[in-house]
């Protein structure tokens, strides 16, 4: 289960709307507690997609409307920010402009089953549903997990 501090959920939807019609990307900072990931803050990073990895036979390096790339240096910065607050990087998020908040076959990561993969759908510039997914250990498929927005105190 993914529990999101209300401010973190609001930050994700605001980021996704600001970057629309491109895809936004960021990391989720929080804590692990058994089966639950509690997200205290969203750490927005830049979508630096320039065709760094091959996701399909027809990747366009300039197409940030339908591609995103989370740069490892941004991950390092997020990790350092998390540690400074006694937190961990518990997952990532990105947006799907004018598409459902469901993973595509191109969404790839070495994310294990403990790492949340949240997707914010944006329709005509307005944030709509936010859902969270976990990649199975063998990398074969994403499984949806429960998502709750709460005041984590």
């Amino acid at each position, binding site marked *: 289960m993914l529990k999101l501090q209300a401010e973190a959920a609001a930050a994700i939807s605001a980021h996704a709307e600001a970057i629309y*019609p491109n895809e936004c990307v960021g990391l989720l900072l929080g804590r692990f507690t058994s089966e639950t990931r509690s997200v205290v803050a969203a750490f927005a990073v830049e979508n630096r997609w320039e065709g*760094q990895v091959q996701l399909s036979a027809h990747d366009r390096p300039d197409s940030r409307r339908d591609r995103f790339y989370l740069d*490892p240096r941004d991950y390092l910065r997020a990790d350092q920010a998390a540690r400074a607050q006694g937190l961990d990087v*518990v997952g990532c998020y990105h947006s799907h402009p*004018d598409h459902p908040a469901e993973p595509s076959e191109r969404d790839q990561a*070495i*994310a294990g089953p403990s790492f949340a993969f949240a997707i914010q759908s944006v329709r005509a510039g307005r944030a709509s549903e936010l859902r969270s997914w976990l990649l199975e250990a063998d990398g074969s498929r994403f499984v949806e997990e429960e998502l709750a927005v709460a005041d984590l105190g």
Partner: protein
Amino acid sequence: MAVTLAIPTALRQYAGGQASISADAATVGELLRAVVEQHPDLGRHLFGEQGKLRSFVNVYVGDEDIRYLDGEESPLRDGETVSIIPAIAGGQPEAVSLQHSAVSPQAAAGA
């Protein structure tokens, strides 16, 4: 030479839950091999069939990608931290066409 390997949260479950592992190693390759020997499950997530690092696995010495250093031969100084960093990338199910990016009449009307 004691050096440290930082494990990203996504892979900690394959490394006994540890955030970092210290080992004696003079190069990145030596460090990775020493850690993978202790944690074979981690090795399966880091290395592909040919024994090469998977494309979505990045290894950094400090804030430099080992692809721009000497790869697994990159030398390590005493006390250095090497980080495994997941590359995360993706995209929508279909390339955005004019049809998808066009604002629908309802949306344009503020519905």
